[in-house]
């Protein structure tokens, strides 16, 4: 069975022109592919969250380039790409007192992939497995 937990890289960025470009350029230089990313921003700073194929390589390359990098574990659910699927999952989690701290999604043809950071990770995995959800992990 694949590892259900995905390592997510978060980078603290000041809102400075060209700063995201600095991140992507660093990853490109190190031959690291981004699978998904999202950004949470305030007026002066942002947290860029990345899922990459080579976590350790990316962490090292970014840290060496001077970025403030943290690793955290998230889940990626794979579900059918049609209306109502995600709503059902979230409702079920919520009924069972597992909340979503943040999430981001990308869909691809028949399938949608949703990265979530739940309030209680192991409980969340348990519930999702009961629902027969499939997980995605493309990391090395």
């Amino acid at each position: 069975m694949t590892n259900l937990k995905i390592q997510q890289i978060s980078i603290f960025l000041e809102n400075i022109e060209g700063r995201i470009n600095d991140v992507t350029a660093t990853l490109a230089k190190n031959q690291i592919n981004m699978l998904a990313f999202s950004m949470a921003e305030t007026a002066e700073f942002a947290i860029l969250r990345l899922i990459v194929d080579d976590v350790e390589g990316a962490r090292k390359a970014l840290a060496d380039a001077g970025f403030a990098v943290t690793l955290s574990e998230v889940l990626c659910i794979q579900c059918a790409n049609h209306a109502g699927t995600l709503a059902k999952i979230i409702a079920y989690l919520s009924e069972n007192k597992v909340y979503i701290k943040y999430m981001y999604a990308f869909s691809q043809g028949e399938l949608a992939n949703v990265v979530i950071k739940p309030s209680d990770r192991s409980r969340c995995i348990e519930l999702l497995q009961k629902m027969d959800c499939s997980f995605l992990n493309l990391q090395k």
Partner: protein
Amino acid sequence: MIWNENKECMSRDERRELQSSRLRKLVDYVYHNTPFYRNKMQAMNLLPSDIKDIDDIVKLPFTTKQDLRDTYPYGMFAAPIRDIVRLHASTGTTGKPTVVGYTRQDLAVWQEAIARVITAAGGARQDIISVGYGYGLFTGGLGFHYGVEHMGATVIPTSTGNSEKHVRLLRDFGITGLAVTPSYALYLSEVMDKMGIDPASLQLRFANLGGEPWSPQMRKDIEQKLHLKAYNCYGLSEIVGPGVAYECEEQNGSHFNEDHFYPEILCPDTLQPVPAGDTGELVITTLTKTGMPLLRYRTKDITSLDYAPCPCGRTNVRLNAILGRSDDMLIIRGINVYPSQVESVILDMPEFEPHYLLIVDRVGILDSLEVQVEVRSEYYSDELSTILALKKKLSDRLKSVLSIKAAVKLVEPNSIERTAGKSKRVIDKRELK
């Protein structure tokens, strides 16, 4: 250990006698050799014979940094150039540079002062001391250098510039003592960290830190990170350079070399003495200098003196921490703010790096204070709420300490400048408008 028990431990009455006789001699000397002081005294109807003992010092005229600029380069010298053996000068970043001249006798006093500084920190002949102050026109490097040689320890003139090399020297040469600025000491610990060198594996035992005010929290940080004891060394170029006052093993105030440099604490507005122990501006008279002796030089440093006996046995008065400078004290929305207050808050919070930058500005008619800090790597988070909570925590603490609201700005790692010299911690944009 005490370098000069005779002078550092003399009774206060005895020292008073010595100070009185030295002051009489000094006033007579400058009256006859420094036209600047003769003119001032004549304008005040004051004769050298009016100065009978040390208490009469309050009758004497003041000297300011502006006086040194106005008389640039040699106008304050009492000795002729043929008797001056060394010159130092300020960088002149805030105006015309100021120049100080030393006779051979002045250099001997300086070396004696530094020998007391190092001995009080536990330094002895077998120590190997790295001087990481700038060598050159700045008094820090050469001042410390010759003091170390004088006391018989081994001096390494590392100077500033190459921090990685400095760390290698610390390791390879078995250096036991360090003379640098407090912020540079912290920076060296970061460099060691990057180089993968454990400070605990070094021989370092003590550091004489000076050149900028620092707080008790910063001392804790430095001692912990570098595995050594950190002692304050107070000084300023106009008076002699480093070595005006120094901490002993008690680490509770810096003993003033008051047989050579006489301290007064005055109210910065009225220029009248404050009651003993109260806070005010430090004013210093050089009792024994012959090259460029100064009467009542206004340091602009805000501090107080502690006359209580010290358990170490030294009887010279102790200089308490510098709370700020009367000229870089910030008045923000009518409130006095000392950068050292902000510093103590930040150093108290492990979530932040011990470096900061204050930016004061005026938006419309309201002054604004922005405090820039870096979050320590282990406190970063993938969650916005965690980072916003950190920011709020600092902002709330600042508010309670400063009584005004400061905008906290979190910046990326290593974006606040670390310098070898006095760090530039305040940018006041209001002056530019």
